């Protein structure tokens, strides 16, 4: 049983920097938790506090119900994989993996067993006699993993372990780590800034920004129901498109009138003439949304939900708009269209096909899928639909 609990955890550095605020999280046994966010958001700090490498300013961290604030790192029964592997350069792979066991005075034959078993799991058996500098990046990472799994700890901590690998290796190692997770069936806490890793590997994801938790949810929920604009744009590649506008209502229903917010009134009135109205489905007329009538909002739409096929534009005529195509990128199975709206905003559309008949500066009409529209309060950036 290995649960990890963080209760109102705060971290302030000696120079006064507030790195982590009000961090609350209960991690169940066997979960694969991912802490994700941009650089400096505090995710590594949280991990290091769980590891015992950083002191905890306020709050409590407990492992398996026992508060570990004052327990030293080596007594917490955790193992950690570092971003730059942190292998002992003067020891062979075998000794690297065996080190922790030697420190705990495990009998020699048991050490041998466990090391060889771990090596086999990670296909390191032929490399046991080599030194780290003779290994490639991927091999080193596997040794770092081996060092961790041989300890059979309660919790695995991983601090951006794939960041130093090239793209191809990263994909391979991602798969390897996921397979390991399924094999070992332990709790893993994983830190990364790459949202792809987060989405593909975790059972639950914690999105952080500036030391504050933005949302904790499964990958699917994070993607479909982002709780604020930051999460919405952070998760998903290419990022979600945003259209500023004002919420309005007329005989035809609730709509968002697309207009740049924050310009002076003169410009606003000129645009008002050409303004585009994007109509929302009736189910969006909740109390919370209606409370935002005549107020500025941000409309979000993911690239795959912008359609350019005539049938779709026909079907979703209530949410169509004229745009200018700037760049077309064809990736084979799909294409990206980089579009510019009448009011000079950028939109990215993902089309599940090859696009041959659109050229630079072509004016085309696209439609947004009304079922997948997101709405955010302009000021707070909080999602107003659920």
């Amino acid at each position: 049983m290995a649960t990890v609990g963080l209760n109102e955890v705060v971290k302030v550095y000696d120079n006064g920097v507030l790195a982590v605020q009000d961090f609350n999280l209960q991690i169940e046994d066997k979960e694969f938790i991912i802490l994700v966010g941009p650089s400096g958001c505090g995710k590594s700090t949280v991990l290091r506090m769980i590891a015992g490498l950083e002191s905890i300013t306020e709050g409590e961290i407990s492992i398996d119900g026992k508060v570990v604030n004052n327990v030293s790192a080596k007594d917490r029964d955790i193992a950690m994989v570092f971003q730059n592997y942190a292998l002992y350069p003067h020891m062979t792979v075998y000794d690297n993996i065996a080190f922790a066991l030697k420190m705990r005075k495990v009998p020699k034959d048991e050490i041998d067993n466990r090391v060889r078993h771990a090596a086999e799991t990670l296909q390191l058996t032929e490399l046991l006699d080599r030194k780290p500098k003779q290994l490639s990046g991927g091999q080193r990472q596997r040794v770092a993993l081996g060092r961790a799994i041989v300890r059979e700890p309660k919790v695995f901590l991983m601090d951006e372990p794939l960041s130093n690998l090239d793209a191809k290796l990263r994909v391979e190692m991602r798969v390897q780590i996921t397979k390991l997770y399924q094999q070992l069936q332990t709790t893993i806490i994983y830190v990364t800034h790459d949202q792809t890793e987060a989405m593909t590997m975790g059972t639950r994801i914690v999105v952080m920004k500036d030391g504050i938790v933005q949302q904790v949810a499964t990958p699917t929920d994070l993607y479909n129901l982002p709780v604020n604009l930051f999460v919405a744009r952070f998760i998903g590649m290419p990022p979600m498109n945003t259209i500023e506008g004002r919420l309005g209502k007329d005989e035809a229903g609730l709509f968002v009138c697309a207009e740049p917010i924050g310009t002076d009134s003169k410009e606003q009135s000129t645009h008002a003439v050409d303004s585009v109205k994007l109509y929302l489905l009736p189910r969006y007329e909740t109390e919370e949304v209606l409370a935002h009538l005549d107020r500025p909002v941000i409309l979000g739409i993911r690239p795959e939900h912008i359609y350019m096929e005539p049938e779709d534009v026909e079907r979703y005529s209530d949410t169509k708009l004229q745009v200018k195509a700037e760049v077309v990128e064809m990736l084979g199975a799909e294409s990206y269209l980089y579009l510019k709206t009448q009011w000079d905003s950028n939109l990215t559309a993902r089309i599940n096909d090859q696009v041959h008949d659109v050229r630079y500066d072509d004016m085309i009409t696209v439609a947004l899928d009304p079922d997948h529209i997101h709405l955010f309060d302009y000021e707070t950036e909080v999602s107003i639909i659920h």
Partner: protein
Amino acid sequence: MKPKRKVWRGIVTALLLIWTFFPIYWMISLAIRGNEELTSALSFFPKSFTFEHFRMLFVKHHFEQALWNSFIVTAISLIIALIVGLACSYILVRVRFRFGLRKVSFFWILLVRVLPPIAFAMPLYFIFNYLQLSETRLPIIVAHLLINLPLIIWFTMTSIDSLAQGIEESAQIDGASEWQIYSHIILPQIYPSIAAVGMLSFMASWNEYLYAVIFIQKRDLFTLPLLLSTMNSEQELTQWGQIGAGGIISMIPVLIFVIFAQRYLIAGLSSGGVKE
């Protein structure tokens, strides 16, 4: 490169080598030529060959005593300085050790490197005199500690600082105690630096003259440089042969280091200074 240029370069290089090695050649020539030659007109090339001078060193001057003295003093001060200095520099670099004290330690170490030995030598001599210890080996060993400690601390601080910190954290999580981190993780990674500074220190001690002159009065405690310096004489030319022989022997450690550990030696020297 044009052949003419190459020839020119070759000539210059040869001249430079002659310039560099002539005194050493001369020393060797003095050491090996027979006594008959060591009279007024010394020829450029030795005309005879003998080991007599080497023999006389030991028979007449008890050279083996000086060798032993130099060795003992160097070895003891080096061992103490290494044990104590490495430990100290690790803490100064890695541990948040009462920040003010660290700055003061840096400063003091720099100061000791720079201050003239004579300023320490005379008072130390008088103090040891007062304590009735001046007939022992203690003063000179202490003096050598004064030379070697700052060097070792300063040098290893730089090397420890360049180690990746994640490795220590990893060891911490793996369950290593502080001592184990130091002995199993830090030290093994800086063995080359330790070798380099060890060699530098050894040479500084082995070659040291000023403190020896001031502290050592008893002839049977003389270190090598001191003994050699008593042998200079214009009257007795045969002494020159012994000086040459003694000189050759005094250079043996250097030769050993150069042949076997050139890389470490150069690394050490070029990181900022050999003490005179």
